[in-house]
């Protein structure tokens, strides 16, 4: 903080709305209210100043390349030496550009309303890009909601191509607005628009991306806890990103008990339905199986309305659990309370014949295991033969690389091509048998 200013950032007459404390902007480090922010800047010129370009600024502030810095800001910049920016000067520059300010974003349509937030489509005046504005109401009784606090603190640490990016946080007296990248639709809308079924190629591309994002979270001991097609966002390129980390939390010590009511019923694993409060990364894997089935068959796997109904649907399809399929089930109190008949289970292949291809059924059955600890992990699932047709390069991607940077990997057109699409899918599947 005490290092000499290297950059004459402040022209005259820059007025700060919140002079003491800037918003967070995109700064990586925790940065704080500093007296320095408003203190006069002593400029030490080391070499002849030169005008700096927008590229210089974007590079210096580690901003995305497509960011258009306002001309007024650019003109004020002179650069006297290279070298890293101090945290506070970077923060102030960001604030001057417009990060952390509500007037930087134009609110467009309302996209939806959640339990603790309203989501709007918006546009950033900096990049002209669309953004999603998640406006969190601050309650007077309790302050900022837990869910919002968890989501913010988790997303600050998760930087991955398959996890939605948090661009900015805008803080006013009445609300806290999280600025996310905008994605056109979620997986549920995507499936609805397809009408019937997704092509197998797309199922693989989406499932692989879901597992990639999840493996990254799990490696950092973060559970999502609320996986469902509505929380998987998809853009035009076909990139899938995990969103809505409101229920997720960093899992620190595994002995902790978690609250029972977390996963939306249809994607909720049976151990959680039966009152298990101690869960680990495997609670997310059941939901992955349900989503995989739904993409392949076009129908939700267990659309239960109540806990009993949900369990009933699961048992009817997979067979009522016994000590051999689920050790400890016979002494489970919740299980004993329900009058379940003894089902032997149905064939998932009859319900979704396309599972026969590329050992899809093999993978699915590893997600849908009663015993949580036996469920396949996200990292292992990525290596399953089901994904073989995606090629080998998908396994060498860096965290922030999109799956579509792999040569030859492309989304099949699912929309408005229902008839021809089926034909295409068939040809492709046949070709994969060679």
């Amino acid at each position: 903080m005490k290092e000499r200013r290297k950059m004459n950032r402040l022209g005259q007459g820059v007025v700060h709305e919140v002079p003491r404390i800037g918003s967070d902007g995109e700064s990586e480090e925790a940065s704080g209210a500093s007296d320095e922010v408003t203190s006069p800047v002593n400029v030490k010129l080391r070499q002849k100043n030169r005008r700096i370009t927008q590229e210089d600024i974007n590079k210096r502030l580690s901003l995305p390349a497509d960011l258009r810095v306002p001309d007024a800001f650019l003109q004020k910049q002179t650069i006297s030496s290279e070298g890293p920016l101090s945290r506070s000067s970077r923060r102030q520059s960001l604030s001057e550009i417009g990060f952390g300010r509500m007037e930087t974003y134009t609110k467009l349509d309302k996209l939806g309303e959640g339990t603790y937030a309203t989501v709007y489509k918006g546009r950033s005046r900096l990049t002209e890009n669309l953004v999603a504005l998640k406006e969190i109401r601050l309650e007077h009784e309790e302050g900022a909601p837990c869910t919002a606090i968890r989501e913010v603190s988790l997303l600050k640490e998760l930087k991955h191509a398959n996890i939605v990016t948090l661009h900015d946080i805008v803080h006013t007296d009445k609300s806290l607005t999280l600025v996310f990248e905008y994605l056109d639709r979620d997986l549920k809308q995507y499936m609805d628009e397809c009408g019937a079924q997704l092509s197998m190629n797309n199922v693989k591309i989406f499932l692989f991306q879901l597992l990639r994002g999840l493996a990254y979270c799990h490696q950092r001991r973060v559970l999502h806890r609320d996986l469902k097609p509505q929380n998987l966002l998809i853009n035009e390129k076909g990139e899938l990103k995990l969103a809505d980390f409101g229920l997720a939390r960093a899992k620190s010590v595994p002995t902790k008990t978690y609250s029972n009511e977390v996963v939306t019923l249809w994607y909720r694993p049976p151990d959680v339905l039966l009152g298990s409060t101690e869960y680990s990364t495997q609670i997310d894997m059941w939901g992955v199986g349900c989503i995989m089935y739904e993409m392949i068959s076009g129908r939700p796997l267990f659309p239960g309305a109540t806990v009993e109904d949900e369990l009933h649907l699961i048992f009817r399809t997979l067979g009522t659990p016994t000590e051999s399929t689920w050790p400890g089930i016979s002494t489970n109190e919740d299980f004993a309370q329900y009058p379940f008949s003894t089902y032997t289970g149905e064939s998932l292949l009859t319900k979704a014949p396309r599972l026969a291809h590329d050992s899809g059924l093999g993978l699915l059955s590893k997600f849908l295991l009663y015993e949580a600890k036996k469920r396949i992990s996200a990292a292992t699932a990525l290596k399953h033969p089901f994904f073989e047709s995606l090629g080998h390069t998908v396994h060498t991607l860096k965290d922030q690389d999109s799956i579509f940077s792999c040569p030859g990997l492309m989304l099949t057109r699912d929309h408005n091509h229902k008839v021809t699409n089926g034909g295409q899918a068939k040809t492709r599947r046949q070709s994969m048998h060679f």
Partner: protein
Amino acid sequence: MSVLIPLGSDTRISKNGDGALTENLLEEKNPAIDYSKCPSQYAGARYIMECGMKLEANVLTIATAATYYHKFFQYATLREYDPYLIGSTCIYLASKVEDSDIKIRDIINVGVNCVKRNSLPLSLEPYFTIRDSVIHAELLLMRVLGFKLKVDLPHKYLLHYIQSLKDWLGEETFKSVPITEVAWTVIQDVYHTPIVLKYSPQLLAASILHFVNQIYGITVPGSDDVNERSWFIFLHKDCTAKSVWEVISKIFEVYKEEECLETIK
């Protein structure tokens, strides 16, 4: 795991049946602090620990709260912000992040009772004023912390290192002295000062454990301090002989600084 024993504790602490400290001993070892006199950064941290214990908060929640608190006062001064208001706010935010859900009303009532001992519960109006202040301060705190709210705490590393140490020392030596208990006490005590921000959690954990070994004169077999091949250098790259001793000297200072607290006579 272990009882939360505040500053100045030693190993002669007796426990009653359910593992809690006996009242008398607690009082003798921890005379009530008069927080209204000489508010300091140290006193505010102590306030967090006292409130945390009275609220039966998780050790990790208290450590997270204390970390926020020290970070906050790296940027702000005690002249500008009341350490006890910020302290209460830190507990509140930490309880949300660590999923322990402590009620704001409890935090306020416990806090007020620490600063004004044996006072009657607040009436509605002053209560609402304080509540609004805490909620306001929470927003401020989050911004100062840059919304980075998850803290990588040394506690889990300490537990791992204790496990390793147990294997290296052998069951018998390990059981002869209360290493775990004392280390667990020290790790909570170090949160009185900002040294927790300065060093990595791994280095803190290893230093605390070496500090405890030194107290009891325990040498790890095969460890060669003269040639700087101490046992802890294998734990993490940050744990060098130089850095561990530096941290240990800072831990001494934590205990020395306790003298600045004024107790109620």
